[in-house]
């Protein structure tokens, strides 16, 4: 009986690492799947539509004749939303991080942190609703002739959505700055703000910038808010009062309609998806590099 047990446990001991490795390998398969599907369909798309058209034309109108496939209107729409979001979220998020890590009493932190976490957990479709039914009417009462679907409203709400992300990541970066550096500043008579400005921020800078880059990338990939509130008219513009379309919203628009599988229109999903994937991947890798650098210093 005892022999039997031993044999069984030695079998599990041989099998478990393999089974567990297979679990971990699904993540590699996922990546391979993403790259393969995007790449193969994108390559097929570019055999029909020349890459030069995609990169040089300034009009995006793949669904109706006369068709044109210039990606720039979608990129400008995406960047416009992202810039508005960053103008809202970066200063507010950083200020909140400074308050939470340097000023806030423990009791206040204990209340504020969970609330920011709730804000981060609200589904994006809920923010979309908020943009369309609260932010847009509010802006329209201040700015006459603002179209119902506009970049400004969606951008501001995307900004509100990424505030918790900016603040919690920047706060981590600032908390990683050793206490002794702050104490040194206080011993020299610095006020809290002077310690933040001249010691804590410079020391945690790469972490803070990494937080900014991640937030930027998150705003680029945000889908539902812009689909609901920013419109569906691809336009090469940097005017926040215009109705625009982002890359993500375009992908949703096509998949909502019944575009036949295998057509050129269907291929655009993958070409746009590939562009989105590459941009966010580069940003995420850059953020990772930055945050590793700041960890090495201490």
């Amino acid at each position, binding site marked *: 009986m005892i022999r039997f047990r031993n044999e069984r*446990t*030695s079998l599990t001991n041989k099998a*478990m*690492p393999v089974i*567990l*490795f*297979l*679990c*971990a*390998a*699904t*993540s590699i398969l996922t*990546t391979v*799947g*993403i790259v393969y*599907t*995007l790449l193969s369909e994108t390559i097929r798309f570019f055999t029909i539509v020349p890459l030069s058209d995609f990169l040089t034309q300034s009009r995006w109108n793949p669904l109706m004749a006369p068709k044109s496939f210039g990606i720039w209107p979608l990129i400008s729409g995406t960047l416009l939303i992202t810039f508005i979001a960053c103008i809202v979220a970066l200063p*507010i998020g950083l*200020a*909140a991080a400074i*308050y*939470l890590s340097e000023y806030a009493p423990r009791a206040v932190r204990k209340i*504020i942190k969970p*609330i*920011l976490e709730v*804000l981060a*957990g*609200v*589904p*994006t*479709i*809920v*923010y*979309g*609703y*908020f943009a369309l*039914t*609260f932010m847009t009417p509010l802006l329209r009462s201040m700015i006459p002739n603002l179209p119902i679907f506009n970049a400004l409203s969606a951008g501001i709400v995307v900004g*509100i959505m990424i*505030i*918790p992300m900016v603040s919690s990541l920047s706060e981590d970066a600032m908390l990683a700055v050793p206490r002794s550096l702050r104490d040194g500043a206080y011993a020299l008579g610095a*006020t*809290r703000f*002077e310690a933040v400005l001249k010691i804590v921020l410079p020391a945690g800078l790469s972490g803070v910038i990494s937080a900014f880059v991640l937030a930027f*990338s*998150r705003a680029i*990939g*945000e*889908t*539902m808010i812009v*689909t*609901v509130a920013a419109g569906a008219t691809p336009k090469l513009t940097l005017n926040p009062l215009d109705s625009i379309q982002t890359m*993500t919203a375009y*992908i*949703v628009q096509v998949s909502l309609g019944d575009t036949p599988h295998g057509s050129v229109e269907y291929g655009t999903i*993958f070409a746009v*998806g590939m562009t*989105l994937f590459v941009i*966010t*991947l580069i940003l995420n890798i850059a953020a990772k590099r930055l945050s590793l650098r700041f960890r090495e210093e201490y």
Partner: protein
Amino acid sequence: MNQWTTADDHKRVLMRRRIDFMLRLLFLLCTSIGIVALAVLIVSIVVDGFRYIRPELFLNYPSRRAAQAGMKSAIVGSIYMLLMMAPISFVFGVGAAIYLEEYAKKNRATRFIQLNISTLAGVPSIVYGILGLTIFVRFFALERSLISGTLTMTLLVLPVIIVSAQEAIKAVPKIRRDASFALGADKWQTVSRAVLPSAMPGILTGVILAMSRAIGETAPLVMIGALTYISFLPSSLKDSFSVMPIQIFNWISRPQEEFHSLAAAGIMVLLALLLLMNFSAILLRNKFQKHI
């Protein structure tokens, strides 16, 4: 004032303190913007949606008439998806985390897997939708079905679960493993009976938080084609389905005011479910912590 300081110095110090105080207020103000935004969001939703919180919302199928429209199929679809997604992503996520923390050698392959997981966590959710559409809906010919949606969302939440489970396993003190080995346990006995029970509260919290993220996700399911006019409950894995965020999205997309209010009511149900899940995460954690 003494011989080393002048009235000027005194003034300068006062000024610096005043700047510090003003900025402290400014930072506090910025911090409260997030809180105010959350409050405004919730109030505006409750004000809009309150009158549509009625039995029909839970008992009726979607309808072209707002007065009769409900989200029964969407609520049931969300719950089905949750019930299937939770065990699958738990097994794969925790399995991967155990491998990386307890078994993997610290070599290039492991570092590559680790880097890959953190990269996957940053991929926009809509890209997972494209993946699901190509792999599950088309390649495996699972059609626009409950199982396609579930598998797509599982892939989406796996990186999050793996990372949080790794954190939980890392936090288990080494002394527990040593004690187990000292009692003659082998590797798997140690992992399953000494490490995992101790890491379980953290793991479960991570899983539930990942699930609540998945329940609110819209974009990938729009991609794989979850439908909005479902007037039946899915009875098999290959049935078409709807989920709450999709139904809400559909109602928001309509121009009529009544449907916007209906969407607000739907959002209230969704947020209530999320709150319930987070609350159960806290309860579970407390319960488990007492046992250890």
